[in-house]
């Protein structure tokens, strides 16, 4: 058993192989073969991950770094291609491969209408994504993480633009990539800063408790650390869709629904959380950054939630919800609840994947329709979907004892002990969450069907390949929270915290624990749960009898419907001026300025040529006069100018 860790390379390698096979032989392979290969490799990875997990879980396991080769050795920089196996990465492995497998499975059915090569292309992209994501979490240094980081961005791009004939989808894909790149820009700078100051980017060198470089820093808020952490956080903002770079995520819903589930809900967008959790020590040492993270997280949470209230596209609602939930995770990170954040990543992966897949199932049934105003009453036709979706909604709304409750509560509790205002806003956000989720549920599954007759005729429950993942995820959404039962309910109930404790041990040592009293904690829980339940019920009752209205929404509702006009603002403030600048560069500076100067020299010479040749006017008298003048000048220079 001990050497199973050395098989770690197989975990990313298998998806890569899947990618290569599916990608290169996409014209030769039939759909079933592609499905088997595509899902099989992920399953295999999952199995290996599981085995590794069991080993890591054993007591006394210390983080291991497994180096493969010199990746980059230029001058001072020596960076290995190495994997890090510890509790955090293993947990993420499980989430990625586990949820990933389910979604692959789901996709085999969901994407069945694609042509065989397209199908293979889709699976190869998915495999590549899993590979990149695994690289991201497995990397033993920030460079490898960055590889995965950009890799998932790429896959996200490819998958959002999977239907490449559609220009809107392409634009969405492009937007996603570019926004991610803005984040990556910060990440990259952070890495450079690290390299420059610490000379290394390897986690082991930086964080190991014995002689890690960061570990030995004792001052808080050193300029370097604050800078690095802020830059890295910029990366996280981009990847995890936080204010101000969140706008790509709702647009990213252009991709196939399983992709939204996998990438834009369960895994990729949580990379930012992973990264900060991974560098928790640095963040802990820079409280300024922590506050920034918390504030941005919280504001994103509430901001996205408000937008979600008025969205009518089923996937858009979920997308904003994702943004909002990610905000919670950052809030957790910002207030030092690293475990809580990771916990929420996990539970969120379950229920948000569930919700997305459920939405996919709905869309599938509706023949591609995504507008919830044209749905309604689907619960009758899609029983499984309805039930699982319902479970998902409860979980995300934070109603006990479903998984969302535990994880969100942990974050909120930590927020409370950090700053009461955080807590209040957080609870408000969670109310909003409950509200819009149940609005979604109500409008989709309850009431009367509002679509066309033809659509109604075709309504049917999805095949098993779709249903099974839903059921599994629903199950996980219910019980997933049980790995993190708060201390007050059960001693040693927070197994996750125990499991992850080696990773966060150093931070925990530094963070002053504001242990709140047990009563207090129960009170808080009660408040949030009750509020969530109230919000849910209100929304459900209100929207289960939704009737489409033609009149345009006005005032604040309109602002919300238009997503606070953020896209428009970006367009006017950044995109357009930038484009004008580029046009200015191109037309004025390049054409008229530099090129004009160069051509001007040419023209000047031509002009000079035309003028100077007039001296040569054919008259001998003039010529001789010119000579005489020349003599005069030369003579004066020679004889007098001394």
């Amino acid at each position, binding site marked *: 058993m001990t050497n199973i860790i050395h098989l770690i390379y197989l975990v990313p390698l298998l998806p890569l192989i899947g990618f290569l096979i599916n990608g290169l032989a996409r014209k030769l392979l039939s759909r079933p073969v592609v499905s088997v290969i595509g899902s099989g490799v992920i399953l295999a990875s999952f199995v290996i991950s599981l085995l590794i997990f069991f080993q890591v879980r054993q007591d006394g396991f210390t983080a291991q770094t497994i180096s493969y080769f010199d990746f980059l050795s230029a001058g001072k920089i020596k960076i290995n291609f190495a994997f890090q196996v510890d509790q955090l990465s293993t947990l993420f492995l499980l989430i990625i491969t586990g949820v990933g497998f389910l979604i692959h499975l789901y996709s085999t059915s969901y994407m069945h209408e694609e042509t065989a090569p397209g199908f293979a292309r889709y699976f190869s992209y998915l495999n590549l994504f899993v590979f990149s994501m695994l690289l991201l979490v497995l990397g033993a240094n920030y460079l490898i993480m960055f590889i995965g980081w950009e890799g998932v961005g790429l896959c996200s791009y490819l998958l959002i633009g999977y239907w490449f004939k559609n220009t809107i989808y392409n634009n969405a894909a*492009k937007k996603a990539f570019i926004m991610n790149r803005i984040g*990556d820009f910060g990440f990259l700078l952070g890495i450079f800063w690290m390299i420059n100051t610490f000379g290394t980017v390897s986690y082991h060198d930086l964080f190991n408790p014995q002689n890690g470089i960061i570990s030995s820093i004792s001052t808080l808020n050193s300029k370097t650390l604050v800078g690095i952490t802020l830059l890295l956080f910029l990366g996280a903002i981009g990847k995890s869709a936080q204010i101000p770079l969140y706008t790509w995520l709702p647009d990213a819903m252009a991709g196939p629904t399983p992709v939204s589930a996998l990438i834009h809900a369960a895994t990729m967008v949580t990379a930012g959380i992973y990264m900060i959790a991974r560098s928790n020590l640095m963040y802990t040492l820079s409280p300024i950054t922590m506050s920034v993270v918390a504030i941005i997280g919280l504001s994103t949470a509430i901001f996205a939630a408000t937008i979600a209230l008025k969205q009518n596209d089923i996937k858009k609602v979920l997308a904003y919800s994702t943004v909002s939930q990610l905000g919670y995770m950052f809030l957790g990170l910002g207030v030092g609840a690293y475990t809580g954040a990771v916990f929420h990543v996990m539970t969120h992966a379950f229920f948000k994947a569930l919700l997305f897949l459920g939405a996919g199932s709905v869309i599938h049934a509706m023949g591609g329709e995504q507008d919830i105003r044209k749905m309604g009453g689907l619960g009758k036709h899609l029983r499984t979907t309805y039930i699982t979706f319902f479970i998902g909604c409860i979980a995300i709304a934070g109603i006990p004892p479903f998984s969302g409750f535990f994880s969100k509560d942990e974050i909120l509790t930590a927020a409370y002990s950090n700053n009461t205002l955080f807590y209040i806003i957080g609870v408000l956000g969670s109310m909003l969450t409950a509200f819009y989720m149940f609005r979604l549920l109500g409008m989709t599954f309850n009431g009367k069907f509002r679509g066309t007759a033809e659509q109604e005729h075709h309504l049917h429950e999805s095949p098993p390949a779709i249903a099974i993942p839903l059921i599994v995820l629903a199950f996980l959404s219910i019980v997933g929270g049980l790995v993190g039962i708060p201390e007050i309910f059960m001693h040693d109930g927070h197994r996750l915290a125990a499991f992850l404790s080696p990773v966060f041990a150093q931070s925990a040592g530094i963070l002053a624990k504001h242990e709140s009293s047990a009563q207090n904690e129960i009170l808080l829980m009660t408040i949030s749960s009750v509020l969530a339940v109230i919000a849910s019920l209100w929304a459900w009752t209100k929207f289960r009898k939704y009737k489409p209205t033609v009149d345009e929404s006005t005032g604040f509702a309109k602002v919300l419907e238009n997503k606070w006009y953020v896209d428009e603002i970006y367009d006017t403030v950044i995109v357009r001026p930038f484009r004008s600048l580029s046009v200015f560069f*191109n037309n004025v500076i390049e054409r008229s300025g530099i090129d004009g100067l*160069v051509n001007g020299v040419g023209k000047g010479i031509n002009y000079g040529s035309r003028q100077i040749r007039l001296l040569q006017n054919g008259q001998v008298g003039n010529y001789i006069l010119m000579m005489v003048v020349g003599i005069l000048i030369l003579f004066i220079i020679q004889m007098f100018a001394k």
Partner: protein
Amino acid sequence: MLGKYITFPELLLWFPLVTGVLAFTIKDAKKVKAWALFSSLMTLIISIISLCYTDGSKYLYYNNVSYKWMPYLGSSFSIGLDGMGRMLTFLTALSFPLILLGTYKREYKNANAFYGLMLLSQCGLMGVFVAMDALVFYFFWELALIPVYFLCSRWGGEKRIPATFKFFIYTFVSSLLMLVGIIYIYLQSPPTITSDHSFAIQAFYKTALLPKEQGWLFCLFFVAFAVKMPVFPFHTWQPDTYEQSPAPATMVLSGIMVKMGVFAVIRWVLPVLPEGTLKFENIVIVLSVAGMLYASCIAIVQDDLKRIVAYSSIAHIGLMSAAIFALNATALQGVMIQMLNHGINIIGLWIVIDLIEKQLGIRKLSQLGGIAQKAPALSIFFVIIVLANMALPLTNAFIGEFAMFAGLYQYNSWYVVFASISVILVAVYSLNMVQKVFYGSTNSITELVQDISIREKVTLAVIVLFIFILGIYPKPVFQLTEDTVSAILTKFGK
């Protein structure tokens, strides 16, 4: 054994020359094409052998051959290969088969002259990379230009004559300035047995120059190389020339010739004029970084595929030139590998663009679209190459750019902050290009496009293979150039 009678630098230099001259005599278009391909493949084999062949000492004296040339002047025809030289000769040798294969379908009038000139330009380029004597270097520096000039002007697009002529004048002026600089340094160089001064590279390295002299000499040299690279604001010849040149010439220009500038700065400016370098490094870096952003911005609003790639190349080269002047091992190593990478990537880009243009006769973004449906293989290759051009991790350019950025960061972090904005901008225009060309729906023109043949697939596959191999395991290249870099840095006491 081989090294005793005839050496690699000689082989690499004379082989293309001889085959190039012979190519002129082959009248049959098909045969001459095959001949050129054969010749370039042979050169590639020679170059690969030279890469494997080592005798322990890699820097400067390795494989050095020297013939008496102008003994009174202290110039000898001396050529040799060090790590950097071997890398760049390899790039040259590798590029030509790729170029020829990638454009094999093209039919050019007077094929014998066309391919003959191609091979001659290869000879010229090789000469630049192997020269170990300033005069020899200058010789080849100009000679490499002439065949390319003819190629561009004879077989290029509609406005080829003014465009390439601008290019010619630009480079000619600048290289003449460099000649003045070379002469000046020569006249300060220490005496040798046969002459008062010497053009040999070692003599140049030993020449002691006053800081003030170094300052203006630096300007003379740098302008020459900046034009070739090109660095903002000496770049305006480039987009026009790339746009108007025939595809193979464009590839030679951007794939290899641009590297001449970078190479020359590393080989002839840094070690010879250390103090001049230190004096101007800031200015150069600022120019380069400004150029990066500027070119990237312009690339965004271009409509012509070739111009986009041209401006993108300016941006990439800007980073290289900035990194050179960061003057540390990391950055220089990055530059080294990036020379190779950029060469490979941009040739790939041109090949794809040429394949599109050849089939459809257009290369305007606004007229293209939906090619991915009709030509998936072409699209995949193109996307991969574009991604490599964007320096996505695990592709070759990432390694180079990462090292360069990291090195530049050591020099001054603010430059990197600005320079890496281009990381975002490159994504903007690259993806825009991919989208406009390959995605979306087809129109009446692009409907006719067909996917590429096996030959072109192989060509592009080789490029992609290099992209990934160098992107995942760049160590051999780093090792190859390590000694060169450290030898240069010792001049700066680093």
